[in-house]
């Protein structure tokens, strides 16, 4: 494991600036992006119509993933297995069925139940997880559904996943699962990465507009490191190799979402501005500082002023008048897919992962991230529990090619893992932490797909040793 990152290269000149002024301090040119292409067209919505039902998206999802799953099933259980549709099932016959999972959860929030008068329910408060031991899994295909039991982890799986199950139908009408498989990693992309060190900085959850000013200095330090103001010469020259910055959502804090104005009387709120206005101005200034020095891709997140349903559309440039004058500012969709210097990036601002977290027993964001890659779908819980646009022609969240870097934003901690696939896939999984909570961002080296977290801190009255943990 090589950590030939900033520190080693910068070490020789670390104390160089503890000296009287030298005549000509060097200026390092930013390493230019050799190849960039935005591959997010499937996530860009033009004319939008919400008059369609969501059943269509499940139909195209199943139709789109069925061939790949049948291939996986044959590979796993033999070429001669019987592939059946649910309507063709015969009791006792061992066969393989491909369908969509549906998990019936008692605790799942249901708006229909809440407003139903006969139940007279108080609206359920939001829970961190909605799973219960009594949850049940069903398999649905185009026409029918059947209850599943057996060698399948009910707690772990979530609604909307396309799965192939191998087993047989029982007399009581349930399907006894002996084995199951997912779409597995998509086919690999050829590797065209750079031969020299090039870094991409991934950060998310800047959380501007929050009440606390804790993270503000850290945000400024982040900007200063990237723009080459901070650090000694060695560090600055390393920072010049940061070819791109990707901000993965939640640029604004959840606090800016307050809708007090709805509850208060009009005369109290007449002259008050939405909290997000001030926050967006701050964002504009920060982006301006970054854009004068490095190309920036800005993805919207859960708390940002754009549409709620996935795929989230780019922030509008009119909100960022100062920064959008620079061509280095790219306002992109969530999820975002792009080729940076020959390396394919794919990632979201984290809503997909956090939604699966709520409805699955999986606790680790990295584990969930890997699981979505193996399940072949970025966000299976959409549209069931996560808002989604009613696609009907094709499901753009199906993974058709294996990216080189797969990330999700706004995770509780930083984690990364290099995954090797059976067909030669090499994927760097990164969970980008929430900067406002952790003051940590990620530096990815495109040359060898290594990732290093970078943490910032100031000092406060009580924060002397809080953030220094001696690791093992």
């Amino acid at each position, binding site marked *: 494991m090589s950590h030939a990152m900033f520190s080693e290269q910068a070490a020789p000149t670390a104390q160089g600036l503890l000296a009287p002024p030298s005549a000509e301090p060097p200026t390092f040119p930013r390493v230019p992006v050799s190849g960039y292409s935005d591959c997010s067209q499937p996530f860009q919505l033009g004319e939008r119509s919400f008059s369609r039902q969501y059943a269509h998206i499940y139909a195209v999802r199943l139709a789109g993933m069925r061939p790949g799953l049948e291939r996986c099933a044959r590979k796993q259980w033999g070429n001669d297995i019987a592939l059946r549709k649910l309507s063709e099932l015969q009791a006792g016959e061992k066969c393989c069925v491909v369908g969509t999972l549906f998990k019936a959860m008692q605790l799942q929030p249901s708006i229909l139940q809440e407003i139903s008068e006969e139940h007279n329910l108080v609206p359920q408060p939001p829970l961190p997880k909605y799973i219960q031991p009594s949850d049940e899994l069903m398999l649905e295909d185009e026409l029918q559904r059947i209850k599943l039991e057996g060698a399948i982890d009910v707690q772990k799986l979530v609604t909307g996943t396309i799965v192939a199950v191998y087993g047989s139908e029982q007399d009581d009408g349930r399907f006894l699962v002996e084995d199951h498989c997912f779409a597995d990693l998509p086919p690999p992309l050829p590797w065209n990465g750079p031969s020299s060190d090039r870094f991409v900085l991934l950060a998310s959850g800047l959380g501007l507009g929050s009440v606390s000013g804790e993270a503000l200095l850290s945000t400024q330090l982040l900007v200063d490191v990237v723009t080459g103001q901070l650090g000694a010469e060695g560090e600055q020259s390393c*920072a010049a190799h940061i070819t791109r910055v990707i901000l993965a959502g939640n640029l604004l804090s959840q606090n800016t979402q307050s809708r007090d104005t709805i509850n208060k009387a009009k005369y109290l709120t007449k002259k008050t501005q939405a909290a997000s206005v001030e926050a967006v101005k701050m964002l504009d200034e920060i982006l301006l*500082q970054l854009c004068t020095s490095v190309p920036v891709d800005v993805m919207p997140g859960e708390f940002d002023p754009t549409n709620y349903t996935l795929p989230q559309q780019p922030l509008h440039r009119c909100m960022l008048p100062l920064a959008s*004058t620079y061509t280095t500012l790219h306002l992109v969709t969530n999820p975002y897919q792009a080729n940076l210097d020959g390396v394919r990036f794919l990632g979201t601002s984290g809503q997909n992962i956090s939604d699966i977290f709520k409805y699955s027993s999986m606790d680790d964001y990295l584990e969930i991230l890997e699981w979505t890659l193996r399940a072949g779908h970025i966000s299976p819980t959409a549209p069931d529990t996560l808002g989604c646009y009613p696609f009907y022609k094709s499901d753009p969240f199906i993974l058709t090619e294996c990216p080189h870097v797969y990330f999700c934003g706004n995770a509780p901690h930083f984690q990364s893992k290099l995954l090797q696939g059976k067909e030669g896939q090499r994927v760097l999984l990164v969970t980008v932490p929430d900067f406002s909570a952790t003051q940590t961002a990620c530096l990815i080296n495109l040359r060898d797909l290594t990732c290093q977290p970078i943490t910032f801190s100031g000092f*406060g009255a009580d924060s002397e040793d809080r953030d220094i943990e001696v690791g093992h």
Partner: protein
Amino acid sequence: MADELYLENIDEFVTDQNRVVTYKWLSYTLGVHVNQAKQMLYDYVERKRKENSGAQLHVTYLVAGNLLQNGYVCHKVAVVREDKLEAMKSKLSTLASVHVYSIQKALLKDSSPLYSTDYDIVKSNLQHCSKFSAIHCAAAVPRTPPDAPRAPAQSQRGPDAASVVNGHGPPAARPPPQQQRGIMGMFAAKAAAKPQDTPKETKAEAKEAPGVSATSSKPSIKNSIMNNFFGKAAMNKLKANSVPEQLKEEKEVAKPSVAVAEPESSPNSVAEKPGKKAESARIQQKDKRSKTKRTDRSDDEEERDPENVKKKRKRIKQLQSDSSDEEADIPPSPTREEERAPSPPLVPALKTELEPASTEGSAAGRKRKRKRVLKSKMFIDEEEGCMVTEKVYESESCTDSEDEFPKPKAPAPNKQPVLPAKREPKEERKNLKKGAAPVNRANKQASIMGFFQKK
């Protein structure tokens, strides 16, 4: 020596002005590379401490390096107080950089003064915030102003089918000629009325575009004035439609023309004022005219410029319905017919232009400008052989910048609007003949004598 100058500067900042001097602040203030600023600070600290070991000087440092955290080798960047510097350095497995971050007289409790100092200095230098940085990015080029706003318009013009919200893309080229004719038409209509109109008219012909651009350069002010005039409901529609138009006009007009438009602002304002009243009266007239005429004109307009003018048309229609009550007391004058003849599409185009033009005039000129003032005029009426006193709007130079909307209402009963002078005497005479007395009385407040006179 120049070298020593910075020491004195820093000394002044820290001790005399009691500032928190961060490297960034010093870099912007002295106009030096950030690394030089860091070195200057270090140099100052060393020298000061050498000459006076009891100097009241507190320093914060930036330390960066590798740190093992949570199982990952993390690159840590931290701002620390001097007393914690060694402790932090020892925690790092590899030291990447250390330099002075700031110097200040007082001991800092937390790092928020550092943040606010940096924030303030960056805010005042936003235009060149990477000027003194150690990294220079060749790709960070600001878009040139005409390109920036034009880019969305062009990209919309191209894939028309794909363009989402605004239908403004395609007809972008058309508004200017429309408004040019509009301005022209307006001036042409009032040629007889005002002496100023004629010189303006010729100027206007030559400089329609500037007029448009001058007016369009103050969309926000226009909006507020229009708001007053037309009321909120109509306002929103107007705003939505006219602001994109304004922006487009801005682009398409060259700079010099804007400069030329400036001197015109004062004559423009006068023309705009009569124009405005003409407009309002015109609206009124339209209401009273037969529907067929209106639909005829709208057909015409739609032929010429379906999308754009239809939009304008919609606005005007809304305005008419909204403001018809407001303008009820502005009577239609028979003279309106004449003015409407010139060119129908000018009217809606006119509307948007008049408003901004007048506000542009009022906004641009807190200086002398011509204004219409209600004045009593006395003259001997030869025909009748009597003296006639009447209230008339007269153009007068004054420094008042307020548009007075009550004014149109005041002479309403008298039917005295601006325009064609030749008509005025006739009208006035008619008015006076017919009902000078009751009309005049209508101006005044109903007196208590009316109660007694009924008997």
